[in-house]
């Protein structure tokens, strides 16, 4: 058992941390998320230069063959700085699907641009009115004389409006869910771009007989999609750990420096004991996030583990988020001060790929199937 990063992974973590710390403080981030496209082209370029956009891809595709541990380490630093760059949305998740399922010419024509930061992707999967875990899609794929076309609505699609190429899930004529590639300028494609409450960007994307190319060899991709979701859930949880850690750090700093009634707030046990509970909650969340990451690294791609981890992350995120604002008082309510932005991001993560309630519902449905839960 070893819960530590190795030296190479630590170097990666530190490189990411340095880059993002140089790039963002609260003021700079506010300026960036208030202007389009919602992230910094300069930071994006730097991320590409240090290889962070190539991490997950195989060496054959111009990537670095890194695994879930490396992704987790990077995501925690993204969470710590609330970096708005769409590493997961535009690179890791859709790129991972192309890397895994794509034909050789699809991989070689798309992935080099992605690793260089010049091609942006998005995974259009979520549909209106249906909760995770969705097993069916209302968006349909039809095969005609001139190839496949898609019809349907996807929303929300993380960073969907800026993507050059979309990976789209759709119901296949003979059952199952297929994956397709769609160019952003394809016929019958309408994108409605918006900001999300955490300052990031998303879009509703509508397809009307939109030409699409089968990803890879086609056929039912449900298992592939589920595996991609499990990896994304783990990455989001690692991001949440970074965000929670920083929210708690800001809160404890504030308790030490803010004075009321002639003393620092840290003199009030009603506050310090709640801060101690936040620490406990953070460490439980960190343990579970590591569990998700380490399981993936061991080759275990298990939706039950993903639900277990996201349940804990969701609980911790709510507690830490709400208490961080409360213990700051009025300043925590302001857009100028960072803590509220962390809380907003944590709630957004919670509502991506299954909320706390969704995951608890899944787990509760399975309790009769085993005697006890164990880590190993």
């Amino acid at each position, binding site marked *: 058992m070893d819960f530590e990063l190795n030296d190479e992974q630590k170097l990666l973590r530190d490189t990411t941390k340095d880059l993002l710390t140089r790039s963002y403080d609260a003021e700079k981030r506010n300026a960036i998320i208030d202007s389009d496209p919602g992230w910094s082209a300069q930071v994006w370029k730097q991320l590409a230069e240090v290889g962070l956009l190539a991490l997950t891809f195989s060496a054959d595709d111009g990537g670095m063959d890194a695994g879930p541990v490396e992704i987790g380490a990077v995501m925690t630093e993204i969470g710590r700085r609330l970096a708005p760059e769409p590493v997961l949305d535009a690179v890791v998740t859709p790129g991972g699907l192309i890397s895994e399922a794509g034909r050789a010419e699809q991989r070689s024509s798309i992935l080099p641009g992605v690793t260089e930061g010049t091609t942006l992707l998005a995974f259009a999967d979520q549909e209106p009115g249906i909760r995770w875990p969705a097993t069916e899609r209302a968006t349909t794929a039809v095969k005609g004389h001139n190839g496949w076309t898609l019809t349907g609505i996807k929303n929300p699609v993380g960073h969907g409006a800026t993507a050059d190429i979309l990976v789209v899930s759709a119901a296949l004529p003979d059952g199952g869910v297929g994956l397709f590639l769609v160019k952003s300028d394809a016929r019958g494609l309408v994108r409605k771009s918006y900001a999300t409450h955490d300052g990031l960007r998303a879009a509703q994307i509508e397809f009307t007989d939109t030409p699409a190319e089968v990803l890879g060899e086609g056929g039912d991709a449900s298992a592939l999609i589920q595996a991609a979701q499990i990896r994304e859930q783990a990455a989001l949880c690692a991001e949440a750990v970074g965000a929670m850690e920083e929210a708690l750090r800001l809160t404890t700093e504030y308790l030490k420096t803010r004075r009321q009634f002639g003393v620092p707030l840290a003199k009030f046990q009603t506050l310090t*004991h709640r801060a*101690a509970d936040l620490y406990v909650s953070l460490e439980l969340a960190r343990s579970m996030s590591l569990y998700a990451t380490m399981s993936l690294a*061991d080759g275990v791609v298990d939706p039950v583990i993903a639900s*277990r981890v996201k349940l804990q992350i969701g609980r911790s995120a709510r507690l830490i988020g709400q208490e961080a604002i409360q213990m700051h008082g009025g300043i925590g309510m302001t857009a100028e001060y960072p803590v509220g932005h962390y809380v907003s991001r944590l709630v957004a993560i919670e509502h991506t790929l299954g909320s706390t309630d969704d995951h608890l519902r899944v787990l509760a449905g399975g*309790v009769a199937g085993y005697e*006890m839960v164990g880590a*190993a």
Partner: protein
Amino acid sequence: MNLALTDEELAFRDEMRTFFRTKIPADIREAHARGEDLGRDRMVEVQQILNAHGLAVPHWPVEWGGKDWTPVQRHIWLDELQLASVPEPLSFNTAMVGPVIAAFGSQEQKEKFLPATANLDIWWCQGFSEPEAGSDLASLKTRAVRDGDDWVINGQKTWTTLGQHADWIFCLVRTDPDAPKRQAGISFILVDLKTPGITVRPIKLIDGGHEVNEVFFEDVRVPGENLVGEVNQGWSYAKFLLGNERTGVTQVGFSKVRLAQAKAHAAEVRVGNGTLLEDPFFAARLAELENELLALELTQLRVVASSADGKPNPASSLLKLRGSQLQQASVELLMDVAGPDSLPYDAGSDIASASWAQHSAPTYLNYRKVSIYSGSSEVQRSIIASSILGL
């Protein structure tokens, strides 16, 4: 990073699992699993079986019966022991006074006490808390005054767990009332409970049982050789001891077994057209608790994996705080599953309410203790706030 146990560790786990489930009598393990009081004799029987196989005091120095195990092996040993519902070796002996004597005692003390302590030939109890010294332990008042070679002790200890079974008591006593810091005037001393002047009086608890006692000292004369280590250094030995105590109180295995029992029993309780286990509300409560326990287990594994240097980890306060919460939550769930069958108290086997169900409410009441003893949850939060968060 690597979550899996090594092949050697897996083999070790199987060895422990097999030992605990074949060498410790099943009737004792089953009674313990039902929450029954085992009494002195059966606890001694179990510890002597463990000790005969070198499994009672693995964390002690090797020359006194310990094993040169890794932190992971020690964790597996305790986890498997709890999962098999084997009563743990008496913590006052193995986790508290034994390690203190081994670390700070004289050679004579080690030879006299350690083998008998490991084998539970001597049953120890703990004389720390006093009526006016609970969480604020350093305010203790029991006095020991030097008289020739002896110490003469006057005062009162309380919450003395299983003192009714005990042969000896290890005490913190005030030896220098004028010390500049209260902590600097305390010594650690070993007292034979047969010494004249000692009275042990039971305290009946809310679960109806007799688990703790008051111990009164009236001119109790103790030989000077019974003082451990240096005079007035007792506080540092007590801190050493309490550090051991806190990591042992996570009790993940105990809570896992309780949740598994709750699950098995819930599958046999009818609710409407189905079972309690099929009820979505109950299932969600159970699933949430299982998950919280998993998060604690992984956190404990992180502490275990990082404790190779042998230094106490400040995160042990987290383990005590969260471990006691989840022990309480798991016995609470078990009681709630028992429902009306939790009402009969000690009513025997002639009625329909099962033994485990009859014990569930007393156990629930009894387990309110775990967030109070060994540094209450409030004390643990203060430690986390000051030593980890710097508040």
